[in-house]
């Protein structure tokens, strides 16, 4: 059993390469978020004025470019981090997917009891909140 260093400063938590990756990931995420918010505002403003048809669908789906950009940033980050980090991150994301599936199923059944339908846009935040909550726990367990 390897003992942990007694003081946290004895061993830096991340290597310079990791810090560079974090920084790069953060700037890509911020760029994706800006694209998303910009496109969302454009989409919400014009979607009501566009006549029914493929054009309306395209305008409604416009913010998806930001979502896809964010997902690409995430996948790029996953492909660069080391094996241990990748494993913990993927485990946390898999748990988040399962928890999301369970919670949405419960919400779906509540619709039968008269609870009004919720927009599907709530699934993404739910997944990522659970992911964020799970990540430190998974890391601690594997350490």
């Amino acid at each position: 059993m390897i003992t942990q260093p007694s003081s946290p400063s004895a061993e830096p938590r991340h290597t310079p390469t990791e810090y560079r990756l974090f920084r790069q990931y953060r700037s890509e995420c911020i760029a994706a978020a800006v694209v998303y918010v910009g496109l969302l505002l454009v989409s919400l403003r014009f979607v009501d004025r566009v006549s029914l048809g493929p054009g309306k669908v395209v305008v409604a789906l416009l913010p998806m470019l930001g979502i896809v950009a964010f997902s690409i940033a995430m996948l790029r980050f996953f492909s660069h981090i080391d094996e241990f980090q990748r494993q913990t991150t993927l485990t946390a994301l898999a748990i988040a997917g399962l928890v999301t599936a369970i919670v949405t199923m419960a919400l779906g059944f509540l619709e039968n009891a008269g609870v009004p339908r919720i927009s599907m846009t709530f699934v993404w935040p739910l997944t990522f909140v659970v992911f964020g909550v799970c990540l430190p726990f998974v890391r601690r367990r594997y350490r």
Partner: protein
Amino acid sequence: MIARESISDTDHSCTPTERKNARRYKFEYFGAAGMYAVLLLVSAGFIDRTPVGAGKVALALLPMIGMIAMCVALVRFISRMDEFQRQYFMTCGAIAGLVTAIATMALGFLENAGVPPVSMTFVWPVTMLAFGACLLLMRRRYR
């Protein structure tokens, strides 16, 4: 000769332990799925006759017991796996979670274009279909 042996090993792809674990999972999973189906029928059969209140909510959520049993079976199955198998299950789970989040977000945006909101019960099948498809693709890739 050694190379031939290793090829035939990967061709069989399952050790007796893995096969036993898979059988156990199948048994637990179908038990849970059977329970889910029965509880769903009970819930759907009586929900309209139950007055609005805590009882109706409890009746609506009844099939969740089967759902959670299915998840417990899955988690137990994953915990019995070896490191390598677990890792690729987790990767598939993470990809399924991400695909679900993206697909539901697109559906959510389509609501702005006038598409009626879809029931939350569709999130689970999307996750599980993505998971299954991913497993098949990954298995082919690692073979």
